[in-house]
């Protein structure tokens, strides 16, 4: 394909953006706007907290200020949960990059919700329900922040493993190594038996279709059946003094008939030079692919873990609301 051929000129052509750093950062105006909103919300909540603490004696979670913080914090958390979920599921009038902006707002509202609900506690962590709900929210925010960190780190790791599993041209490296290994096995099998291969046969079939040579005969065996041994011609009128293929093969350095314990050939894999290296390479590629699978599992299951934590926090918050309602309703109904 033309596109693949063009890869050969990749080095020369690729003068654009290069490099894939660990934990790179892409800011932009939208990101700074969300950061500003977080600081503004936190500052407003903090200033009100200080002011209220100095001007009121009722600094408890069930004071007016405490309820205000609780309501605002709950609204922020609901916005964080609902807006992004709805935006992800809705495909109406969406533009490129809108989902990313929604994700940024999701983070912004999540952080603000946690801040306001923390202020709602007024440092009172005695009620178990509220404390557990707050712990749940803290865990949720931490898992979200860790998720964003993993979103930067893990894809970079996956890319490194895929780079190992692909050749320079982008082909499957395991396939390429396997073919080389297969060729080495076939080649060494041929050398080991000292047989000639029937011309026209495929290399992987060669080991099962070898023909023994017993004389100085022509190398054209196309007239023979592949399983038929070569017979001595009936009209053989002379005996050649030239070395037979067996003698040539026996005298060659790579093949010896007499076992020699000191010989290099006695070492494992000596008759298959390069095979061990290829097998090691295959194992490396296999390990890279297993690591890739593991990293992909991290990305997939961290999202599920975050959603699970969100559901758990929601349950704890509802438990806390029921507890608060049990305290509030009698006061409101029977003042």
């Amino acid at each position, binding site marked *: 394909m033309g596109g693949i051929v063009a890869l050969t000129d990749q080095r020369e052509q690729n003068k654009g953006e290069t490099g894939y750093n660990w934990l790179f950062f892409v800011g932009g105006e939208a990101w700074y706007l969300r950061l500003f909103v977080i600081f503004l919300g936190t500052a407003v909540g903090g200033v009100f907290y200080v002011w209220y603490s100095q001007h009121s004696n009722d600094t408890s979670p069930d004071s007016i200020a405490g309820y205000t913080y609780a309501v605002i914090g709950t609204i922020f958390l609901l916005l964080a949960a609902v807006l992004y979920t709805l935006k992800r599921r809705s495909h109406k009038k969406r*533009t490129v*990059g809108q989902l990313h902006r929604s994700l940024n707002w999701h983070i912004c509202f999540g952080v603000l919700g946690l801040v306001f609900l923390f202020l709602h506690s007024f440092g009172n962590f005695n009620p178990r329900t509220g404390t557990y709900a707050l712990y749940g929210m803290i865990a949720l925010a931490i898992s979200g922040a860790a998720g964003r960190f993993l979103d930067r780190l893990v894809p970079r790791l996956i890319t490194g493993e895929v780079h190992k599993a692909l050749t320079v041209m982008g082909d499957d490296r*395991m396939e390429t190594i396997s073919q080389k290994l297969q060729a080495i096995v076939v080649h060494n099998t041929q050398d080991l038996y000292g047989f000639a291969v029937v011309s026209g046969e495929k290399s992987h079939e060669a080991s099962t279709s070898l023909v023994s040579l017993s004389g100085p005969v022509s190398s054209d065996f196309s007239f023979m059946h592949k399983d038929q041994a070569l017979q001595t011609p009936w009209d053989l009128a002379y005996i050649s003094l030239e070395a037979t293929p067996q003698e040539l093969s026996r005298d060659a350095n790579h093949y010896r008939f007499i076992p020699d314990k000191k010989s290099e050939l006695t070492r494992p894999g000596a008759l298959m030079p390069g095979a061990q290296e290829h097998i090691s390479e295959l194992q490396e590629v296999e390990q890279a692919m297993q690591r890739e699978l593991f990293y992909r599992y991290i990305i997939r299951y961290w999202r599920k873990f975050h959603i699970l934590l969100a559901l758990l926090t929601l349950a704890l918050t509802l438990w806390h609301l029921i507890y608060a309602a049990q305290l509030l309703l009698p006061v409101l109904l029977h003042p």
Partner: protein
Amino acid sequence: MLKAGFRSGANSVVMLHKTVPQVAQELHACIGCNECLLACPAVTESITIDVLNRETLAGPISVQVARFARSCYQCGACVAPCPVGLHRDDMMMWLKVRILRSGWGE
């Protein structure tokens, strides 16, 4: 074959990424509907599918596309909306590998 033997063994591994011929095949099959980009939570800038397709396989990579490739976290949100069943995440992976290799001076 040897490869099949490795894969059918106890420590069998599955190839989760695509090779360049497969990526090229998917790029040729892309109808340019933009659904993958609309569903992507990682893309920050307004990138057109034509530019992305053109720069994925070979050639220079623009700043916007490189940023997008680095930001892509392989969540797979782009796969389900594709009307022709293509795997944009695999195409992005090859783009990531290219960016990684370009950083190493290849």
